[in-house]
Protein backbone atom coordinates (compact mmCIF):
# COMPACT_ATOMS: atom_id res chain seq x y z
CA UNK A 1 0.00 0.00 0.00
CA UNK A 2 2.73 2.42 0.90
CA UNK A 3 4.56 3.32 -2.27
CA UNK A 4 7.99 4.33 -1.04
CA UNK A 5 11.48 3.58 -2.21
CA UNK A 6 13.88 2.12 0.32
CA UNK A 7 17.39 3.48 0.05
CA UNK A 8 20.53 2.15 1.68
CA UNK A 9 23.47 3.37 -0.39
CA UNK A 10 25.19 6.40 1.06
CA UNK A 11 25.53 8.24 -2.27
CA UNK A 12 21.78 8.35 -2.75
CA UNK A 13 21.11 9.05 0.90
CA UNK A 14 23.52 11.94 0.82
CA UNK A 15 21.50 13.75 -1.83
CA UNK A 16 18.28 13.18 0.07
CA UNK A 17 19.68 14.54 3.33
CA UNK A 18 21.14 17.47 1.40
CA UNK A 19 17.70 18.33 0.03
CA UNK A 20 16.13 18.31 3.47
CA UNK A 21 19.02 20.15 5.06
CA UNK A 22 17.92 23.81 4.59
CA UNK A 23 14.43 23.17 5.88
CA UNK A 24 15.57 21.06 8.80
CA UNK A 25 18.10 23.65 9.92
CA UNK A 26 15.45 26.40 9.88
CA UNK A 27 12.95 24.08 11.54
CA UNK A 28 15.39 23.34 14.34
CA UNK A 29 16.22 27.01 14.87
CA UNK A 30 12.71 28.43 14.74
CA UNK A 31 10.44 25.59 15.87
CA UNK A 32 12.21 22.76 17.70
CA UNK A 33 14.80 24.80 19.58
CA UNK A 34 12.24 27.36 20.82
CA UNK A 35 10.14 24.57 22.33
CA UNK A 36 13.19 23.22 24.16
CA UNK A 37 14.29 26.69 25.25
CA UNK A 38 10.78 27.44 26.51
CA UNK A 39 10.85 24.36 28.69
CA UNK A 40 14.31 25.18 30.05
CA UNK A 41 13.64 28.91 30.64
CA UNK A 42 10.38 28.07 32.38
CA UNK A 43 12.46 26.80 35.32
CA UNK A 44 14.43 30.03 35.56
CA UNK A 45 14.13 33.71 36.35
CA UNK A 46 15.11 35.50 33.15
CA UNK A 47 14.70 39.16 32.13
CA UNK A 48 16.70 39.10 28.85
CA UNK A 49 19.49 41.24 30.38
CA UNK A 50 20.99 39.04 33.07
CA UNK A 51 21.90 35.39 32.76
CA UNK A 52 18.89 33.16 33.62
CA UNK A 53 18.80 32.06 37.26
CA UNK A 54 17.51 28.57 38.06
CA UNK A 55 14.45 28.76 40.31
CA UNK A 56 13.01 25.25 40.05
CA UNK A 57 9.26 24.96 39.96
CA UNK A 58 8.55 28.37 41.44
CA UNK A 59 7.23 29.83 38.16
CA UNK A 60 4.69 27.03 37.92
CA UNK A 61 3.80 27.32 41.58
CA UNK A 62 3.18 31.03 41.16
CA UNK A 63 1.19 30.41 38.00
CA UNK A 64 -1.26 27.97 39.52
CA UNK A 65 -1.39 29.17 43.13
CA UNK A 66 -0.73 32.91 43.15
CA UNK A 67 -1.86 34.27 39.81
CA UNK A 68 -5.59 34.95 39.82
CA UNK A 69 -5.42 36.55 36.38
CA UNK A 70 -3.92 33.37 34.94
CA UNK A 71 -6.78 31.35 36.40
CA UNK A 72 -9.20 33.84 34.81
CA UNK A 73 -7.31 33.46 31.52
CA UNK A 74 -7.53 29.68 31.72
CA UNK A 75 -11.24 29.90 32.41
CA UNK A 76 -11.86 32.30 29.52
CA UNK A 77 -9.74 30.22 27.15
CA UNK A 78 -11.65 27.10 28.16
CA UNK A 79 -15.03 28.75 27.66
CA UNK A 80 -14.00 30.04 24.22
CA UNK A 81 -12.23 26.84 23.16
CA UNK A 82 -14.86 24.40 24.40
CA UNK A 83 -17.50 26.24 22.36
CA UNK A 84 -15.60 27.39 19.27
CA UNK A 85 -13.48 24.23 18.94
CA UNK A 86 -16.20 21.57 18.64
CA UNK A 87 -18.88 23.84 17.15
CA UNK A 88 -16.45 25.35 14.66
CA UNK A 89 -15.32 21.85 13.72
CA UNK A 90 -18.85 20.51 13.31
CA UNK A 91 -19.90 23.67 11.46
CA UNK A 92 -16.97 23.27 9.05
CA UNK A 93 -17.92 19.67 8.41
CA UNK A 94 -21.63 20.37 8.12
CA UNK A 95 -21.13 23.21 5.66
CA UNK A 96 -18.68 21.21 3.55
CA UNK A 97 -21.09 18.29 3.49
CA UNK A 98 -24.14 20.38 2.64
CA UNK A 99 -22.52 22.26 -0.23
CA UNK A 100 -20.98 19.08 -1.58
CA UNK A 101 -24.09 18.03 -3.50
CA UNK A 102 -24.68 21.37 -5.16
CA UNK A 103 -23.69 22.00 -8.79
CA UNK A 104 -19.96 22.77 -9.11
CA UNK A 105 -20.24 26.51 -9.78
CA UNK A 106 -22.52 27.22 -6.86
CA UNK A 107 -20.30 25.07 -4.67
CA UNK A 108 -17.28 27.15 -5.66
CA UNK A 109 -19.07 30.42 -4.82
CA UNK A 110 -20.25 29.15 -1.44
CA UNK A 111 -16.77 27.85 -0.66
CA UNK A 112 -15.39 31.36 -1.09
CA UNK A 113 -18.18 32.95 0.95
CA UNK A 114 -17.67 30.62 3.90
CA UNK A 115 -13.89 30.55 3.72
CA UNK A 116 -13.43 34.32 3.20
CA UNK A 117 -13.73 35.37 6.88
CA UNK A 118 -10.77 33.20 7.87
CA UNK A 119 -8.53 34.62 5.14
CA UNK A 120 -6.01 36.80 6.87
CA UNK A 121 -6.35 40.50 6.87
CA UNK A 122 -8.28 42.26 9.57
CA UNK A 123 -11.85 41.94 8.35
CA UNK A 124 -12.94 41.11 11.86
CA UNK A 125 -12.24 44.71 12.85
CA UNK A 126 -15.62 45.52 11.31
CA UNK A 127 -17.14 43.83 14.36
CA UNK A 128 -15.80 46.66 16.52
CA UNK A 129 -18.24 48.89 14.64
CA UNK A 130 -21.12 46.43 14.63
CA UNK A 131 -20.73 45.83 18.38
CA UNK A 132 -19.61 49.35 19.24
CA UNK A 133 -20.81 50.48 22.67
CA UNK A 134 -22.17 53.87 21.63
CA UNK A 135 -25.61 54.34 20.06
CA UNK A 136 -24.01 54.55 16.62
CA UNK A 137 -22.79 50.97 16.85
CA UNK A 138 -24.84 49.05 14.32
CA UNK A 139 -26.35 46.53 16.72
CA UNK A 140 -27.13 49.10 19.40
CA UNK A 141 -28.69 51.43 16.83
CA UNK A 142 -30.95 48.70 15.51
CA UNK A 143 -31.96 47.49 18.99
CA UNK A 144 -32.69 51.08 20.06
CA UNK A 145 -34.66 51.73 16.89
CA UNK A 146 -36.76 48.62 17.41
CA UNK A 147 -37.29 49.55 21.04
CA UNK A 148 -35.76 46.37 22.42
CA UNK A 149 -33.32 48.29 24.63
CA UNK A 150 -33.52 51.80 26.17
CA UNK A 151 -29.84 52.57 26.45
CA UNK A 152 -26.89 51.28 24.41
CA UNK A 153 -25.20 48.12 25.64
CA UNK A 154 -21.42 48.12 26.06
CA UNK A 155 -20.94 44.89 24.11
CA UNK A 156 -17.15 45.05 24.16
CA UNK A 157 -16.64 46.49 27.66
CA UNK A 158 -19.25 44.67 29.73
CA UNK A 159 -17.82 41.40 31.05
CA UNK A 160 -21.22 39.83 30.58
CA UNK A 161 -21.13 40.25 26.79
CA UNK A 162 -17.43 40.18 25.92
CA UNK A 163 -16.98 36.42 25.77
CA UNK A 164 -20.14 35.71 23.74
CA UNK A 165 -19.08 38.34 21.18
CA UNK A 166 -15.57 36.86 20.96
CA UNK A 167 -17.06 33.40 20.52
CA UNK A 168 -19.40 34.61 17.80
CA UNK A 169 -16.57 36.22 15.85
CA UNK A 170 -14.35 33.14 16.33
CA UNK A 171 -17.11 30.95 14.95
CA UNK A 172 -17.53 33.30 12.02
CA UNK A 173 -13.84 32.77 11.27
CA UNK A 174 -13.72 29.05 11.96
CA UNK A 175 -14.21 27.73 8.42
CA UNK A 176 -10.53 27.63 7.53
CA UNK A 177 -8.17 24.92 6.30
CA UNK A 178 -10.19 22.20 7.99
CA UNK A 179 -13.21 23.28 5.97
CA UNK A 180 -11.23 23.16 2.71
CA UNK A 181 -9.90 19.72 3.63
CA UNK A 182 -13.44 18.50 4.28
CA UNK A 183 -14.69 19.82 0.92
CA UNK A 184 -11.83 18.09 -0.84
CA UNK A 185 -12.22 14.89 1.15
CA UNK A 186 -15.92 14.65 0.34
CA UNK A 187 -15.16 14.79 -3.35
CA UNK A 188 -12.83 11.83 -3.14
CA UNK A 189 -15.34 9.44 -1.57
CA UNK A 190 -15.93 6.70 -4.10
CA UNK A 191 -19.26 7.40 -5.90
CA UNK A 192 -19.98 3.70 -6.40
CA UNK A 193 -20.22 3.30 -2.63
CA UNK A 194 -23.14 5.70 -2.62
CA UNK A 195 -24.84 3.83 -5.44
CA UNK A 196 -24.31 0.56 -3.61
CA UNK A 197 -25.70 2.16 -0.47
CA UNK A 198 -28.77 3.33 -2.34
CA UNK A 199 -29.46 -0.27 -3.39
CA UNK A 200 -28.65 -1.62 0.07
CA UNK A 201 -31.42 0.51 1.54
CA UNK A 202 -29.85 3.72 2.77
CA UNK A 203 -32.94 5.85 2.95
CA UNK A 204 -31.82 9.42 3.50
CA UNK A 205 -28.77 11.66 3.53
CA UNK A 206 -28.26 11.31 7.27
CA UNK A 207 -27.85 7.55 7.10
CA UNK A 208 -25.58 7.96 4.13
CA UNK A 209 -23.46 10.42 6.12
CA UNK A 210 -23.08 8.07 9.06
CA UNK A 211 -22.54 4.77 7.28
CA UNK A 212 -20.60 5.77 4.17
CA UNK A 213 -19.24 9.30 4.18
CA UNK A 214 -17.78 9.67 7.68
CA UNK A 215 -15.81 6.40 7.80
CA UNK A 216 -14.32 7.29 4.40
CA UNK A 217 -13.07 10.65 5.57
CA UNK A 218 -11.19 9.77 8.72
CA UNK A 219 -7.84 11.24 7.56
CA UNK A 220 -9.43 14.60 6.78
CA UNK A 221 -11.40 14.53 10.02
CA UNK A 222 -8.13 14.15 11.90
CA UNK A 223 -6.46 16.96 10.01
CA UNK A 224 -9.45 19.27 10.56
CA UNK A 225 -9.41 18.45 14.27
CA UNK A 226 -5.79 19.56 14.59
CA UNK A 227 -6.58 22.86 12.87
CA UNK A 228 -9.63 23.50 15.10
CA UNK A 229 -8.02 22.57 18.41
CA UNK A 230 -4.83 24.51 17.80
CA UNK A 231 -6.61 27.69 16.79
CA UNK A 232 -9.31 27.40 19.49
CA UNK A 233 -6.77 27.09 22.32
CA UNK A 234 -4.47 29.70 20.84
CA UNK A 235 -7.21 32.34 20.69
CA UNK A 236 -5.79 35.79 21.43
CA UNK A 237 -5.65 38.13 18.45
CA UNK A 238 -9.43 38.42 18.26
CA UNK A 239 -9.82 39.27 21.94
CA UNK A 240 -7.21 42.02 21.65
CA UNK A 241 -8.75 43.46 18.49
CA UNK A 242 -12.28 43.46 19.90
CA UNK A 243 -11.94 44.14 23.61
CA UNK A 244 -8.52 45.76 23.87
CA UNK A 245 -5.45 44.73 25.84
CA UNK A 246 -5.89 44.03 28.61
CA UNK A 247 -9.63 43.65 28.30
CA UNK A 248 -11.76 45.43 30.96
CA UNK A 249 -11.62 43.41 34.19
CA UNK A 250 -9.76 40.73 32.23
CA UNK A 251 -13.19 39.63 31.01
CA UNK A 252 -11.81 38.27 27.74
CA UNK A 253 -8.21 37.68 28.83
CA UNK A 254 -6.90 34.43 27.36
CA UNK A 255 -3.82 32.30 27.99
CA UNK A 256 -2.21 33.60 24.79
CA UNK A 257 -2.86 37.18 25.97
CA UNK A 258 -1.34 36.41 29.36
CA UNK A 259 1.71 34.88 27.68
CA UNK A 260 2.35 37.95 25.53
CA UNK A 261 1.70 40.24 28.49
CA UNK A 262 4.60 38.71 30.42
CA UNK A 263 6.73 37.93 27.37
CA UNK A 264 6.67 41.24 25.52
CA UNK A 265 5.52 43.85 28.05
CA UNK A 266 6.73 42.81 31.49
CA UNK A 267 9.77 40.98 30.09
CA UNK A 268 9.53 38.19 32.65
CA UNK A 269 10.69 35.58 30.20
CA UNK A 270 10.89 32.72 32.69
CA UNK A 271 7.33 33.22 33.79
CA UNK A 272 6.11 33.74 30.21
CA UNK A 273 7.82 30.50 29.22
CA UNK A 274 6.04 28.63 31.98
CA UNK A 275 2.74 29.91 30.54
CA UNK A 276 3.90 28.86 27.06
CA UNK A 277 4.79 25.36 28.28
CA UNK A 278 1.35 24.97 29.89
CA UNK A 279 -0.37 26.13 26.69
CA UNK A 280 1.86 23.86 24.59
CA UNK A 281 0.99 20.92 26.84
CA UNK A 282 -2.72 21.65 26.61
CA UNK A 283 -2.62 21.85 22.80
CA UNK A 284 -0.58 18.72 22.22
CA UNK A 285 -2.44 16.69 24.87
CA UNK A 286 -5.89 17.65 23.52
CA UNK A 287 -4.78 16.92 19.97
CA UNK A 288 -3.38 13.48 20.79
CA UNK A 289 -6.51 12.64 22.79
CA UNK A 290 -8.85 13.65 19.96
CA UNK A 291 -6.73 11.79 17.41
CA UNK A 292 -7.16 8.61 19.44
CA UNK A 293 -10.87 9.24 19.61
CA UNK A 294 -11.33 9.86 15.88
CA UNK A 295 -9.34 6.72 15.06
CA UNK A 296 -12.03 4.73 16.82
CA UNK A 297 -14.96 6.34 14.99
CA UNK A 298 -16.69 3.86 12.74
CA UNK A 299 -14.58 0.84 13.74
Amino acid at each position, binding site marked *: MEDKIRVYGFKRNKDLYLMMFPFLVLFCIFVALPVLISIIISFTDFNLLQFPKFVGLSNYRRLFLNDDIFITAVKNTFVIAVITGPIGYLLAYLMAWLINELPAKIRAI*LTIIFYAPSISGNVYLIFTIIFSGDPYGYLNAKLLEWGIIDSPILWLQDTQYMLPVVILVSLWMSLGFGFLAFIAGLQTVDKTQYEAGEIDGIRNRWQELWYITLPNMRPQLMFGAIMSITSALGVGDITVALTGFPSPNYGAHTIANHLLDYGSIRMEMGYASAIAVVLFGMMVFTNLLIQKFIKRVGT
Partner: protein
Amino acid sequence: MASFKVSTVSLEKKQNLRIKYKRAPNAFIKFFTNTRSNRSVWGNILLVAFLTFLAFLFLFPVIFMANNAFKPLHELLKFPPDIIVKTPTLNNFLELRVIFQDSVIPLSRYIFNTIFILVIGTAGQVIFASMAAYPLAKYKFFGSEVISRIIVLSLMFSPVVTAVPNYVIISKLGLIDTYWAIILPAFAATLGLYLMKNFMEQIPSSLIEAASIDGASEFAIFWRVIMPSVKPAWITLFIVSFQTMWGVTGDMYIYKENLKTFSYALGQIARVGIARQGVMAAVSLIMFLIPTITFIIAQSNVIETMTTSGLKE
Protein backbone atom coordinates in the same frame (compact mmCIF):
# COMPACT_ATOMS: atom_id res chain seq x y z
CA MET B 1 -9.55 38.69 -44.30
CA ALA B 2 -8.85 39.84 -40.81
CA SER B 3 -12.34 41.12 -40.16
CA PHE B 4 -13.77 37.85 -41.44
CA LYS B 5 -11.66 35.92 -38.96
CA VAL B 6 -12.76 38.08 -36.07
CA SER B 7 -16.41 37.65 -36.88
CA THR B 8 -16.18 33.85 -36.87
CA VAL B 9 -14.43 33.88 -33.54
CA SER B 10 -17.04 36.08 -31.96
CA LEU B 11 -19.78 33.92 -33.48
CA GLU B 12 -18.23 30.87 -31.90
CA LYS B 13 -17.93 32.70 -28.63
CA LYS B 14 -21.58 33.67 -28.76
CA GLN B 15 -22.58 30.12 -29.37
CA ASN B 16 -20.44 28.91 -26.49
CA LEU B 17 -21.99 31.51 -24.27
CA ARG B 18 -25.45 30.46 -25.31
CA ILE B 19 -24.68 26.86 -24.47
CA LYS B 20 -23.17 27.93 -21.15
CA TYR B 21 -26.21 29.95 -20.16
CA LYS B 22 -28.56 27.23 -21.27
CA ARG B 23 -26.69 24.70 -19.21
CA ALA B 24 -26.26 26.59 -15.96
CA PRO B 25 -29.91 26.81 -14.85
CA ASN B 26 -30.46 23.28 -16.08
CA ALA B 27 -27.88 21.89 -13.68
CA PHE B 28 -29.60 23.73 -10.89
CA ILE B 29 -33.13 22.65 -11.82
CA LYS B 30 -31.86 19.12 -12.24
CA PHE B 31 -30.52 19.29 -8.72
CA PHE B 32 -34.02 19.98 -7.42
CA THR B 33 -36.04 17.54 -9.46
CA ASN B 34 -34.02 14.73 -10.89
CA THR B 35 -31.99 13.54 -7.90
CA ARG B 36 -31.28 10.11 -6.57
CA SER B 37 -34.01 7.94 -5.11
CA ASN B 38 -32.99 8.54 -1.49
CA ARG B 39 -33.15 12.33 -1.79
CA SER B 40 -36.38 14.23 -1.31
CA VAL B 41 -37.15 17.33 -3.38
CA TRP B 42 -38.30 19.18 -0.28
CA GLY B 43 -35.04 18.29 1.41
CA ASN B 44 -33.15 19.84 -1.47
CA ILE B 45 -35.23 23.03 -1.38
CA LEU B 46 -34.77 23.30 2.37
CA LEU B 47 -31.05 22.75 1.95
CA VAL B 48 -30.69 25.55 -0.56
CA ALA B 49 -32.81 27.92 1.54
CA PHE B 50 -30.73 27.13 4.63
CA LEU B 51 -27.44 27.62 2.79
CA THR B 52 -28.59 30.92 1.28
CA PHE B 53 -29.52 32.14 4.74
CA LEU B 54 -26.16 31.10 6.19
CA ALA B 55 -24.26 32.56 3.27
CA PHE B 56 -25.94 35.89 3.94
CA LEU B 57 -25.08 35.64 7.63
CA PHE B 58 -21.43 35.00 6.80
CA LEU B 59 -21.31 37.74 4.21
CA PHE B 60 -23.09 40.36 6.31
CA PRO B 61 -19.99 41.81 8.03
CA VAL B 62 -18.15 41.89 4.71
CA ILE B 63 -21.05 43.64 2.96
CA PHE B 64 -21.28 46.10 5.83
CA MET B 65 -17.56 46.81 5.65
CA ALA B 66 -17.55 47.19 1.86
CA ASN B 67 -20.45 49.66 2.02
CA ASN B 68 -18.86 51.62 4.84
CA ALA B 69 -15.75 52.03 2.72
CA PHE B 70 -17.78 53.98 0.15
CA LYS B 71 -19.96 55.99 2.56
CA PRO B 72 -19.55 59.75 2.87
CA LEU B 73 -19.12 61.11 6.40
CA HIS B 74 -22.75 62.11 6.95
CA GLU B 75 -23.89 58.60 6.11
CA LEU B 76 -21.33 57.05 8.47
CA LEU B 77 -22.65 59.17 11.35
CA LYS B 78 -26.29 58.72 10.47
CA PHE B 79 -28.66 57.38 13.08
CA PRO B 80 -29.96 54.75 12.70
CA PRO B 81 -27.19 53.50 10.40
CA ASP B 82 -27.95 51.88 7.05
CA ILE B 83 -26.07 48.95 5.63
CA ILE B 84 -26.24 49.94 2.00
CA VAL B 85 -24.50 53.11 0.89
CA LYS B 86 -26.81 55.72 -0.74
CA THR B 87 -24.37 58.16 -2.32
CA PRO B 88 -21.15 56.21 -2.85
CA THR B 89 -17.93 58.20 -2.77
CA LEU B 90 -14.24 57.46 -3.06
CA ASN B 91 -13.43 60.01 -0.35
CA ASN B 92 -12.30 57.39 2.15
CA PHE B 93 -9.75 56.00 -0.28
CA LEU B 94 -8.62 59.52 -1.21
CA GLU B 95 -8.23 60.41 2.44
CA LEU B 96 -6.05 57.34 2.82
CA ARG B 97 -3.78 58.82 0.16
CA VAL B 98 -3.68 62.16 1.94
CA ILE B 99 -2.71 60.48 5.20
CA PHE B 100 0.18 58.75 3.50
CA GLN B 101 1.29 61.97 1.80
CA ASP B 102 1.63 63.57 5.22
CA SER B 103 3.53 60.66 6.76
CA VAL B 104 7.33 60.64 6.95
CA ILE B 105 7.60 57.30 5.21
CA PRO B 106 5.99 57.26 1.75
CA LEU B 107 3.32 54.72 0.95
CA SER B 108 5.52 53.20 -1.75
CA ARG B 109 8.08 52.26 0.88
CA TYR B 110 5.53 50.26 2.92
CA ILE B 111 4.32 48.56 -0.23
CA PHE B 112 7.89 47.75 -1.26
CA ASN B 113 8.56 46.22 2.18
CA THR B 114 5.49 44.03 1.95
CA ILE B 115 6.24 42.93 -1.61
CA PHE B 116 9.84 42.13 -0.72
CA ILE B 117 8.82 40.04 2.29
CA LEU B 118 6.02 38.39 0.33
CA VAL B 119 8.11 37.44 -2.69
CA ILE B 120 11.21 36.20 -0.85
CA GLY B 121 9.23 34.60 1.98
CA THR B 122 6.76 32.82 -0.27
CA ALA B 123 9.31 31.68 -2.87
CA GLY B 124 11.67 30.43 -0.17
CA GLN B 125 8.94 28.60 1.65
CA VAL B 126 7.76 26.86 -1.53
CA ILE B 127 11.30 25.84 -2.52
CA PHE B 128 12.56 24.69 0.90
CA ALA B 129 9.34 22.92 1.84
CA SER B 130 9.14 21.10 -1.51
CA MET B 131 12.78 20.07 -1.33
CA ALA B 132 12.30 18.64 2.14
CA ALA B 133 8.94 17.08 1.29
CA TYR B 134 10.24 15.01 -1.63
CA PRO B 135 12.63 12.69 0.29
CA LEU B 136 10.09 12.29 3.09
CA ALA B 137 7.27 11.49 0.67
CA LYS B 138 8.98 9.03 -1.61
CA TYR B 139 11.84 7.43 0.32
CA LYS B 140 12.36 5.31 3.37
CA PHE B 141 15.70 5.98 4.96
CA PHE B 142 17.31 6.37 8.34
CA GLY B 143 15.38 9.04 10.22
CA SER B 144 12.55 9.55 7.73
CA GLU B 145 9.85 8.16 10.03
CA VAL B 146 10.97 10.23 13.00
CA ILE B 147 11.09 13.45 10.99
CA SER B 148 7.59 12.84 9.60
CA ARG B 149 6.25 12.31 13.10
CA ILE B 150 7.88 15.47 14.40
CA ILE B 151 6.34 17.43 11.52
CA VAL B 152 2.84 16.22 12.44
CA LEU B 153 3.50 16.97 16.10
CA SER B 154 4.56 20.51 15.22
CA LEU B 155 1.17 21.12 13.57
CA MET B 156 -0.38 20.56 16.98
CA PHE B 157 0.69 23.85 18.57
CA SER B 158 0.43 27.41 17.38
CA PRO B 159 3.36 29.83 16.95
CA VAL B 160 2.24 31.89 19.96
CA VAL B 161 3.72 29.15 22.15
CA THR B 162 7.23 29.79 20.83
CA ALA B 163 6.96 33.59 20.64
CA VAL B 164 9.23 34.27 23.59
CA PRO B 165 12.23 32.06 22.68
CA ASN B 166 11.80 33.09 19.05
CA TYR B 167 12.34 36.67 20.06
CA VAL B 168 15.46 35.69 21.98
CA ILE B 169 16.83 33.65 19.07
CA ILE B 170 16.10 36.32 16.48
CA SER B 171 17.75 39.00 18.55
CA LYS B 172 20.79 36.77 19.26
CA LEU B 173 21.13 36.16 15.51
CA GLY B 174 21.15 39.93 15.02
CA LEU B 175 18.04 39.87 12.87
CA ILE B 176 16.03 42.50 14.75
CA ASP B 177 15.16 45.34 12.39
CA THR B 178 15.79 43.33 9.25
CA TYR B 179 13.36 41.70 6.83
CA TRP B 180 14.88 38.33 7.73
CA ALA B 181 13.28 38.41 11.17
CA ILE B 182 9.97 37.80 9.37
CA ILE B 183 11.21 35.82 6.38
CA LEU B 184 13.41 33.16 7.99
CA PRO B 185 10.86 31.86 10.53
CA ALA B 186 8.29 31.73 7.71
CA PHE B 187 10.58 29.29 5.85
CA ALA B 188 10.20 26.88 8.75
CA ALA B 189 6.38 26.76 8.68
CA THR B 190 5.42 23.10 8.71
CA LEU B 191 1.89 23.21 7.29
CA GLY B 192 3.31 23.80 3.80
CA LEU B 193 5.75 20.92 4.05
CA TYR B 194 2.97 18.70 5.33
CA LEU B 195 0.63 19.50 2.40
CA MET B 196 3.47 19.08 -0.10
CA LYS B 197 4.53 15.75 1.35
CA ASN B 198 1.02 14.32 1.29
CA PHE B 199 0.53 15.39 -2.30
CA MET B 200 3.87 13.98 -3.43
CA GLU B 201 3.11 10.60 -1.91
CA GLN B 202 0.64 10.04 -4.74
CA ILE B 203 3.34 10.08 -7.39
CA PRO B 204 4.10 6.48 -8.39
CA SER B 205 7.58 5.39 -7.33
CA SER B 206 8.09 3.70 -10.69
CA LEU B 207 8.29 7.15 -12.28
CA ILE B 208 11.22 8.07 -10.05
CA GLU B 209 12.92 4.71 -10.51
CA ALA B 210 12.66 5.00 -14.29
CA ALA B 211 14.22 8.45 -14.19
CA SER B 212 17.06 7.30 -11.96
CA ILE B 213 17.82 4.35 -14.25
CA ASP B 214 18.14 6.90 -17.03
CA GLY B 215 20.91 8.44 -14.92
CA ALA B 216 19.14 11.47 -13.52
CA SER B 217 20.40 12.76 -10.16
CA GLU B 218 18.04 13.25 -7.23
CA PHE B 219 18.03 16.99 -7.80
CA ALA B 220 17.24 16.54 -11.48
CA ILE B 221 14.39 14.13 -10.65
CA PHE B 222 13.04 16.57 -8.11
CA TRP B 223 13.18 19.52 -10.48
CA ARG B 224 12.12 17.87 -13.76
CA VAL B 225 9.83 15.04 -12.68
CA ILE B 226 8.38 15.84 -9.26
CA MET B 227 7.83 19.58 -9.29
CA PRO B 228 5.93 19.71 -12.60
CA SER B 229 3.59 16.97 -11.46
CA VAL B 230 2.73 18.58 -8.11
CA LYS B 231 1.80 21.96 -9.53
CA PRO B 232 -1.51 22.22 -7.62
CA ALA B 233 0.36 21.61 -4.36
CA TRP B 234 2.88 24.38 -4.77
CA ILE B 235 0.22 26.76 -6.01
CA THR B 236 -1.66 25.99 -2.79
CA LEU B 237 1.45 26.47 -0.73
CA PHE B 238 1.96 29.78 -2.48
CA ILE B 239 -1.58 30.85 -1.58
CA VAL B 240 -1.27 29.68 2.04
CA SER B 241 2.04 31.46 2.42
CA PHE B 242 0.71 34.57 0.69
CA GLN B 243 -2.26 34.74 3.05
CA THR B 244 -0.10 34.56 6.16
CA MET B 245 2.69 36.84 4.92
CA TRP B 246 0.21 39.43 3.69
CA GLY B 247 -1.16 40.03 7.17
CA VAL B 248 2.22 40.04 8.95
CA THR B 249 2.89 43.26 10.79
CA GLY B 250 6.23 42.21 12.26
CA ASP B 251 5.78 44.64 15.14
CA MET B 252 7.59 42.24 17.49
CA TYR B 253 10.81 42.34 15.48
CA ILE B 254 10.81 45.49 13.40
CA TYR B 255 11.00 48.90 15.05
CA LYS B 256 12.44 51.02 12.25
CA GLU B 257 9.55 52.82 10.62
CA ASN B 258 11.01 52.53 7.11
CA LEU B 259 11.12 48.72 7.33
CA LYS B 260 7.52 48.24 8.45
CA THR B 261 4.95 46.53 6.30
CA PHE B 262 1.93 47.80 4.43
CA SER B 263 -0.46 45.91 6.72
CA TYR B 264 1.23 47.47 9.75
CA ALA B 265 0.77 50.95 8.29
CA LEU B 266 -2.84 50.26 7.40
CA GLY B 267 -3.44 48.86 10.87
CA GLN B 268 -2.08 52.02 12.47
CA ILE B 269 -4.44 54.15 10.40
CA ALA B 270 -7.41 51.95 11.17
CA ARG B 271 -6.73 52.27 14.89
CA VAL B 272 -7.44 56.00 15.04
CA GLY B 273 -10.89 56.67 16.38
CA ILE B 274 -14.43 56.81 15.17
CA ALA B 275 -14.06 59.80 12.85
CA ARG B 276 -11.96 57.61 10.61
CA GLN B 277 -14.51 54.81 10.48
CA GLY B 278 -14.74 55.18 6.72
CA VAL B 279 -10.98 55.08 6.29
CA MET B 280 -10.82 52.01 8.48
CA ALA B 281 -13.40 50.27 6.32
CA ALA B 282 -11.46 51.25 3.21
CA VAL B 283 -8.31 49.81 4.77
CA SER B 284 -10.06 46.59 5.76
CA LEU B 285 -11.48 46.24 2.27
CA ILE B 286 -8.01 46.48 0.70
CA MET B 287 -6.58 44.05 3.27
CA PHE B 288 -9.41 41.63 2.58
CA LEU B 289 -9.66 41.82 -1.20
CA ILE B 290 -6.08 41.01 -2.16
CA PRO B 291 -5.73 37.61 -0.46
CA THR B 292 -9.34 36.78 -1.33
CA ILE B 293 -8.74 37.41 -5.03
CA THR B 294 -5.61 35.25 -5.00
CA PHE B 295 -7.62 32.50 -3.38
CA ILE B 296 -10.42 32.77 -5.96
CA ILE B 297 -7.89 32.49 -8.80
CA ALA B 298 -6.26 29.42 -7.26
CA GLN B 299 -9.35 27.81 -5.76
CA SER B 300 -9.45 24.62 -7.83
CA ASN B 301 -5.76 23.97 -7.17
CA VAL B 302 -6.24 24.48 -3.45
CA ILE B 303 -9.11 22.03 -3.30
CA GLU B 304 -7.15 19.48 -5.31
CA THR B 305 -4.24 19.70 -2.90
CA MET B 306 -6.50 19.47 0.10
CA THR B 307 -7.80 16.07 -1.06
CA THR B 308 -4.52 14.62 0.19
CA SER B 309 -4.34 16.71 3.35
CA GLY B 310 -5.60 13.95 5.63
CA LEU B 311 -3.67 12.50 8.51
CA LYS B 312 -2.67 8.89 8.05
CA GLU B 313 -3.21 6.44 10.84
